[in-house]
């Protein structure tokens, strides 16, 4: 509020300065003329108020006019004051020189006043109590000593008064000029405020007018009354100052001062008695009270209003700020909520994605597991152990697989391979390849035929894929190994102090060349030797060359031809793989044809018709290894086969069971025992009659012992051809 007022004031004063600038001499001249005229009129009014014949004037308005004019229009208006003062003083001065000197004094006093006021930073709005103090003590009382001294001095010098009269003349001059300033200057200074400050409402105007009338009336009545009632005016001045500040108080004070001074000049009421000095003293005291009361009160109220307005402004600004801050906070809060919401959404999305990834991994792992053989078929004459170790990484379920296929002719098909890539699709492709390989192997187990079939399947997959695979056929009877290898790490054959990687029979991986040529190679598996099949995960590790892995496999397997194949697999995994950090899937198969028996034969097989050939093969191998001749071999095989077939046919109903074949040879006495744990059903009519007939015809002695816990068929034969 205050700065605003200040701005308005400075704008208005600079406007006035512009108006009166030298670049507009006409306006300057006009201002001079108006000031001179006003000064002169003010002087004429002042003279009518003189207590003693135009000499002792208790209120000299021109001084106030000059001070106000200099404050409003600038000090360069002084010529108007000098000229007007000269004009006023000429008729009442003794000489021309006296009039000129007096005029100079009358000009100097307001100039000094304005200079002093400028020094102390006086504001013509008179809205601070220091402005009131400034104009009273500097603008009026101090400055007017100049005009009083010059004027009274001139009077004495020109012999208009005696030296004795000088002090009282000085005092009258001084008080007159000071009162002129105090009464008139505020009034003049308040006039521009009507344009600068907010306009009064009609009610205000009415109030202002009422105060003026009441003040004038009260003063006029009190001043004409013998009773001392002049103090009654003071509440009115307080009212004016309180309600309207300078714009109400200054006019009221002027009116009151004028009326009272006029009354004093006419010696009415309180001024009817007493000496000139008493009259003068009373009047000036009253006028001083009026001026001080109205000025100070107006200034104080202005200040208070401004403070209140500033306080209100500050309060409203504070409120604004609080509201702004609140809005900011609530916006920030909103943003925060939004962010939290977005973050939780992202979190949810992430966990959904995570769940999807985990789910896919689970599916791939399940698929992988389900696609691998759930059990290794029992192949007579061959010990087989297999391991599959999934990678420990999250999505690293791979396309590694192995398979052990029991072939119809009693041989065993072995496959180990790797579908390039990881995850669901690799596992799924692996499943297809594995099943296809099984199907081809059963149809025609020849390695080249099987590999050609798998090659066609891989070539016709919707997505191109690379597959490495080794396919082998092992005949346990002859211990011959036939195989072909499509880009897979070579099988290891070890035993008897030797280790060999079977690196022949190699062709590129499947899915790489359109028309590959597969070659079949045949190896003899020495008695007691072990074949190790594996995928690259076993020998390939980060920062370790494959050759190093292959060498380690040789070292770790060497000398272990005596240990069980299951124990061998576990040892190899423990020695070569960090179980907690498996980078790639590992498939591992260890195969060992049974060593020539040096004792009884023990066979335990599922009681299924397709197992009969396996039983015969194992028994044939045992008989041959035991040195039994071909003639005896055929008869024993048939008799034993019949016993086994009977188990398959009769021992078990729907539930699967086992058949056990036990053979011993003591000298030339051969005993074969076939045992089941089932309950025999009535013999079916499928050649049933001939089974026992054949056994009895082929063996020397056949003993069938049927109990509730199963049946034992014991057959003995003295070998015709002896043993080799």
């Amino acid at each position: 509020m205050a700065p605003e007022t200040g701005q308005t004031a400075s704008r208005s004063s600079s406007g006035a300065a512009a108006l009166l600038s030298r670049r507009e001499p006409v306006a300057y001249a006009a201002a001079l003329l108006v000031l001179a005229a006003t000064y002169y009129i003010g002087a004429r009014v002042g003279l009518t108020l003189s207590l003693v014949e135009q000499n002792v004037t208790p209120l000299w308005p021109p001084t106030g006019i000059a001070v106000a004019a200099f404050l409003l229009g600038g000090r360069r208006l002084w010529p108007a004051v000098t000229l007007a003062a000269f004009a006023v003083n000429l008729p009442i001065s003794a000489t021309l020189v006296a009039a000129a000197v007096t005029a100079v004094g009358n000009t100097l006093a307001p100039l000094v006043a304005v200079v002093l006021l400028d020094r102390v930073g006086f504001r013509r709005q008179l809205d601070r109590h220091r402005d009131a103090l400034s104009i009273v003590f500097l603008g009026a009382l101090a400055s007017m000593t100049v005009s009083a001294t010059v004027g009274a001095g001139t009077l004495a010098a020109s012999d208009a008064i005696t030296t004795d009269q000088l002090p009282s003349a000085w005092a009258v001059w001084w008080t007159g000029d000071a009162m002129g300033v105090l009464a008139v200057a505020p009034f003049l200074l308040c006039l521009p405020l009507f344009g600068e400050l907010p306009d009064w409402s009609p009610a205000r105007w009415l109030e202002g007018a009422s105060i003026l009338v009441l003040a004038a009336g009260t003063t006029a009545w009190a001043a004409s009354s013998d009773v001392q009632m002049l103090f009654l005016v003071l509440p009115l001045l307080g009212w004016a100052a309180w309600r309207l500040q300078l714009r109400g108080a200054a006019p009221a004070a002027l009116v009151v001062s004028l009326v009272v001074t006029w009354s004093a000049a006419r010696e009415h009421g309180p001024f009817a008695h007493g000496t000139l000095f008493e009259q003068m003293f009373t009047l000036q005291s009253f006028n001083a009270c009026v001026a001080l009361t109205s000025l100070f009160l107006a200034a104080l109220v202005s200040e208070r209003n401004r403070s209140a307005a500033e306080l209100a402004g500050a309060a409203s600004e504070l409120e604004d700020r609080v509201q702004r801050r609140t809005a900011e906070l609530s916006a920030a809060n909103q943003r925060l909520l939004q962010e939290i919401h977005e973050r939780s959404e992202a979190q949810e999305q992430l966990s959904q994605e995570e769940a999807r990834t985990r789910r896919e991994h689970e599916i791939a792992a399940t698929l992988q597991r389900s696609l691998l053989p759930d059990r290794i078929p029992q192949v007579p004459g061959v010990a087989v152990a297999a391991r599959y170790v999934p990678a420990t990484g999250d999505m690293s379920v791979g396309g590694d697989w192995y398979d052990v296929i029991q072939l119809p002719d009693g041989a065993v098909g072995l496959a180990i391979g790797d579908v390039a890539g990881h995850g669901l699709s690799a596992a799924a492709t692996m499943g297809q390849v594995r099943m296809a390989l099984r199907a081809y192997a059963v149809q025609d187990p020849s390695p080249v035929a099987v590999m050609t079939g798998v090659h066609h399947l891989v070539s016709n997959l919707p997505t191109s894929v690379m597959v490495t695979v080794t396919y082998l056929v092992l005949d346990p009877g002859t211990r011959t190994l036939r195989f072909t290898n499509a880009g897979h790490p070579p099988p290891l054959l070890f035993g008897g102090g030797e280790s060999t990687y079977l690196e022949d029979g190699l062709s590129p991986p499947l899915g790489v060349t359109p028309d590959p040529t597969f070659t079949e190679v045949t190896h003899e598996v020495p008695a007691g030797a072990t074949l190790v099949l594996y995928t690259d995960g076993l020998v390939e590790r980060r920062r370790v060359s494959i050759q190093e892995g292959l060498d380690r496999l040789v070292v770790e397997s060497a000398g272990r031809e005596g240990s069980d194949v299951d124990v061998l697999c576990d040892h190899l995994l423990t020695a070569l793989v960090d179980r907690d950090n498996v980078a790639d899937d590992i498939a591992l198969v260890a195969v060992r044809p049974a060593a020539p028996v040096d004792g009884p034969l023990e066979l335990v097989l599922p009681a299924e018709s397709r197992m009969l050939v396996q039983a015969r093969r194992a028994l044939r191998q045992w008989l041959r290894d035991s040195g039994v001749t071909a003639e005896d071999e055929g008869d024993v095989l048939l008799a034993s086969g019949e016993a086994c077939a009977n188990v398959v046919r009769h021992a078990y109903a729907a539930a699967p069971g086992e058949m056990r074949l036990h053979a011993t040879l003591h000298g030339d006495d051969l005993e074969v025992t076939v045992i089941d744990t089932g309950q025999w059903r009535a013999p079916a009519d499928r050649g049933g009659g001939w089974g026992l007939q054949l056994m009895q015809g082929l063996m020397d002695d056949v003993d069938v012992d049927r109990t509730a816990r199963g049946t034992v068929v014991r057959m003995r034969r003295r070998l015709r051809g002896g043993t080799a």
Partner: protein
Amino acid sequence: MSELARVEPLPQDGSADHTVVLSVTGEIDLSNAEQVRDAIGAALPVEAAVLVVDLSGTQYLDSAGIAMLFRLAERLGWSRQELHLVVPPDAPIRAAIRITHLDTVITVHDALA
């Protein structure tokens, strides 16, 4: 090699149009006897008067196989067709044929004529 036993027609001289010769190689047991019978039946034209099954290459023949051959002979008899077997004297299956007296029902030759 694809099966435990394989049934194949043998080429003829052309002198006996009414005779069909099939050879069975491999092993015949409970697990594949019926398949072998079906294979023989499928390979036998209805107009053939005589079927010769050469078992020279058969390594194993159990009671289920014997029963199958009996039934085959019986079935062919209904259609006025004859079944002959060829089993060398030193064949491992000769004992089974002897013990079950199969040779009393079906003509068994030591060798192809």
